[in-house]
């Protein structure tokens, strides 16, 4: 029901592709909408931006910039996706395939909450 995939590796060449596309309208026009990677950082026990809107197939990358570990877990009713604990500098990628509004939180510090909105 919730087809999410945690990507095992680091952010791939996709970032470079998007950067290149920025310089070439022709490339953008020729290719169907490419999956993008959207960044969410964790600073001072806060997800920033708190709410992100992505397209189906896009990946959200969380980066922990605090001196304390955090994780990411789907809130009740938002599936079972999660990120393992991220120490300082740690990252986690999750690809969202289906449209919907997915609330999440840090299971260590549950007052930290955010939402991934997936819209075609």
């Amino acid at each position, binding site marked *: 029901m919730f087809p999410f995939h945690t990507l095992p590796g680091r952010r791939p060449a996709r970032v470079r592709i998007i950067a290149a596309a920025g310089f070439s309208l022709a490339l953008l026009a020729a290719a169907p909408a490419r999956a993008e990677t959207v960044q969410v950082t964790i600073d*001072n*026990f*806060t997800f920033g931006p708190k709410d992100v809107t992505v397209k189906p197939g896009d990946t959200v990358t969380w980066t922990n910039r*605090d*001196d*304390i*570990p955090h*994780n990411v877990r789907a*809130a*009740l009713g938002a599936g079972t996706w999660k990120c*393992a*604990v991220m*120490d*300082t500098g740690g990252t986690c990628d999750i690809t969202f395939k289906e449209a919907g509004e997915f*609330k*999440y*939180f840090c*299971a*260590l*510090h*549950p*007052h930290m*909450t955010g939402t991934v909105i997936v819209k075609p």
Partner: protein
Amino acid sequence: MTDDPKTPVLPVDSPAGIDRRSLLRCGAWIGAGVVWSVSGGVPQSLGLLGEAAAATATGPTFIQLSDSHIGFDKPANPDALKTLNEAIGKIEAMQVKPGFMLHTGDITHLSKPQQFDDAAQTIGGTRIQTYYVPGEHDLVDEDSGKAYLDRYGKGTKGAGYYSFDQHGVHFIGLVNVVNLKAGGLGNLGEEQLAWLANDLKGRRTSQPIVVFAHIPLWTVYADWGWGTDDGAQALALLQRFGSVTVLNGHIHQIIQKVEGHITFHTARSTAFPQPVPGTAPSPGPQLVPAEQLRDYLGITSVTVKQGSKMLALTDSPLSQL
């Protein structure tokens, strides 16, 4: 002066707190090293550490250790194992050997086997029996707590709660760091609350109770998650007892509150301080000058006075132990 005169909050740790309105509405900064004698729910300062130690060294004593965060190596304390070792050294040097110790969680920083090993070796070196409850940092292994339970879960229920009796006092170790809900605080859960009700059933109200858990059972500062959503349900079950002492960690600073016959107290960490609520953008490791770090770290010792309901709590920073 306060919206609830029955619940004065007495932060004991930091001069910075004196400016903090949200928590200090009716509070007073007392300064580190003061000993509290708790009588009929009203704490009385016994004086400075030296006098007080003499005045209270009559009954069995136990130690509360908290938030050792073994594995933490960030600027706020590059070597958390070293400061735990120092705390242990001071405990071993005490004139009166503590009967046992409580560790109120965050033994490790990331639940790694080596971190558990280092903590166990250091604390175990005292050969003083130690009772544990987990903090949220102890349950972040891949199996969400198996690493903790494999080591400390023997004879416990659920995620690791249990009770035992020592020196006529009933001790209850609770777990409020699992199944946390988005936007919520610490959580005990229905199953544990039912167990607690049963554990207290038929117990004499004259028996002193000590409850220990990682996150404060009372709301210290909800904006930073420093409280337990269903803590009030546990406290309601404890209401009928004449002497209840609630010992928590998690916030890495001393805060004390008295409500009826219940004394709430949080301990210092042995690893790193955290800011006084409301004085920083968020909780988290607080960087202090290296030469002051040991003023912010420490342990709590608790003396059970025989024939009395009073428990005397003594907080000692590492710099003074």
